């Protein structure tokens, strides 16, 4: 029985027919986690997940139970789960145990899904390569000399290497889509406000959004459905009623095809110029080809202010982060320095000793752009250019229903390749950040492999709250190109 080939609906059916048990599934994944420790995908593995699986088996999985009941998953270690250590991959929270549940964790718990553990990330989700973790870097399972992408690298690897059925990351500037792309799996960064941020450790509050990851589109839709929807605990969470993407994808084929017939896809050619590898461009053409055959029309669209997106992002994100991270004071929770001759010393040494280099760099930058004398030239200016970027997308959507572009200009780069030059590392996010600035939804899908066997990925960007167009197009792509989906990473001898 090859569990890794099965989708969530298939496993759910097998659980109901008693052809497999939640304990078998859970121990299957726990064993794989144990055998793939060198990938460093998990910070905390929950061995007692087997007891939870056992109690689910004892109660039996019934027809009317939630589809995820008994199915194992993982969560990025910046989402609070009551009673479980939540580190954010930082020394400052190394021994912090969450004392309440994030809404995401609560909804998954209510669904009966089985939490296998908390996955590795760049410290406080700040990074594009998952090399900034206090617990060490995560390794790309397709080639161990390469990065898995960040910041949700552990979550992406847990799915691509078959160490969980599905997972969740957070995407502030591409942190779900980039690692999913580098790992050959599907992901979605929903419209800002679709998923509650309650209990998600804040990085940049106006940009952060939880995003699921899975090996195929049905699993992605189910993982999305269970966590999205209004939440009174988060004032930024949308009040729009939840629409089930899985039910939508399962609707009859005729009405489904009608939902996307005559839809137009925009290609922002002016964004996809410099520094894009030949393999990625080839893969983009192939995706265009697949979508053309499905009946989509293509138009060129322009997002002229996207050339400022990187700078706007690193001003806004670091500004918000410097404020959000001021709560780590050595007093209320987290690391407390022994150097405490006075209150200021306690603050400064606790933070200086326990935050990593990248986090400190971003706090410094954020403090600078918000400080008196520089606020207008940096933070305020960036917030205005952000409006222009959002307007550009709105204008582009007058001519098209979705936008297609690569997730990253290149495939997974080598470990250590960009660590000494923060600016070069920041450029990894050049194709993903505009979406966060404009609060739009974007679905990342795998689109084959480059010459060396590393995965390539594309993204479909939609109008605000139009996730259904993205899911329907992605499902059709999966039907036409099944070889792009359901891949489990294995390092190939030829690339070692």
């Amino acid at each position: 029985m090859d569990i890794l080939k099965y989708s969530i609906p298939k496993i759910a059916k097998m659980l109901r027919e008693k052809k497999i048990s939640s304990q078998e599934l859970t121990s299957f994944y726990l064993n794989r986690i144990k055998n793939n420790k060198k990938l460093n995908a998990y910070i905390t593995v929950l061995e007692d997940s087997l007891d939870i699986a056992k109690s689910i088996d004892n109660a039996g999985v019934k027809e009317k139970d939630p589809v995820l009941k008994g199915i194992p998953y993982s969560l990025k270690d910046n989402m609070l789960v009551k009673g479980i250590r939540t580190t954010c991959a930082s020394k400052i929270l190394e021994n912090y145990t969450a004392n309440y549940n994030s809404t995401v964790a609560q909804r998954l718990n209510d669904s009966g899904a089985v939490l296998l553990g908390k996955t590795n990330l760049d410290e406080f989700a700040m990074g594009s390569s998952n090399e900034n973790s206090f617990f060490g870097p995560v390794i790309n399972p397709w080639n161990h000399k390469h990065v898995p992408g960040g910041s949700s690298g552990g979550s992406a690897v847990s799915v691509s290497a078959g160490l969980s059925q599905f997972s969740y990351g957070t995407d502030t500037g591409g942190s779900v889509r980039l690692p999913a792309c580098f790992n050959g799996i599907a992901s979605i960064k929903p419209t800002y406000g679709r998923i509650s941020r309650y209990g998600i450790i804040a990085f940049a509050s106006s940009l952060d959004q939880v995003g699921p990851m899975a090996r195929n589109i049905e699993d992605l839709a189910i993982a999305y459905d269970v966590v999205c929807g209004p939440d009174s605990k988060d004032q930024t969470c949308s009040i729009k009623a939840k629409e089930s993407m899985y039910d939508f994808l399962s609707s009859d084929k005729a009405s489904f095809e009608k939902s996307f017939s005559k839809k137009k896809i925009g290609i922002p050619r002016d964004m996809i110029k410099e520094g894009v590898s030949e393999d990625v461009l080839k893969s983009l053409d192939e995706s265009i080809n697949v979508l053309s055959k499905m009946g989509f029309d293509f138009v060129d669209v322009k997002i002229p202010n996207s050339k400022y997106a990187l700078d706007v992002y690193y001003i806004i994100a670091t500004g918000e982060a410097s404020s959000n991270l001021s709560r780590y004071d050595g007093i209320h929770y987290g690391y407390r320095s022994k150097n405490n001759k006075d209150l200021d010393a306690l603050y400064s040494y606790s933070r200086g000793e326990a935050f990593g280099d990248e986090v400190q760099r971003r706090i410094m930058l954020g403090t600078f752009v918000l400080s008196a004398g520089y606020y207008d030239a940096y933070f305020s200016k960036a917030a205005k250019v952000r409006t222009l970027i959002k307007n550009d997308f709105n204008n582009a959507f007058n001519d098209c229903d979705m936008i297609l572009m690569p997730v990253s200009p290149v495939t997974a780069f080598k470990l250590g390749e960009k660590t000494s030059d923060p600016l070069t590392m920041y450029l990894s996010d050049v194709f993903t950040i505009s979406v966060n600035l404009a609060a739009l939804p974007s679905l990342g899908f795998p689109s084959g492999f480059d010459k060396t066997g590393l995965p390539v990925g594309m993204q479909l960007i939609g109008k605000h709250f139009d996730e259904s167009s993205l899911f329907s197009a992605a499902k059709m792509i999966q039907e036409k190109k099944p070889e792009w989906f359901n891949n489990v990473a294995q390092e190939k001898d030829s690339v070692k």
Partner: protein
Amino acid sequence: MKITGDLVDKIAGLAHLDVTKKNKSLLAEQLTQIVEHMRVLDQVDVSNVEPMFHGCIETKPLRKDEVAPFEHELIMSSATVTQDNYFTVPSIIDGENE
């Protein structure tokens, strides 16, 4: 815009970050490089453009301003040093120590 060593000290002070053990000249150099890159925004005309300070597409009704229940002792259990169920800080009056 050059971020000098003195400016690094000033920002670190504002951010309550001890950077005495850091390579300050490298930090200043990296921050300068990033901030220089950000000057590209000088080219953009933003007159009459409203800033976008949040990501919400819609406005939401406010909920009632009511205190939600919480477990005091559980919250206090996250702190490293407490006394009589209060957070403890170093003395802020001369002559006393933690």
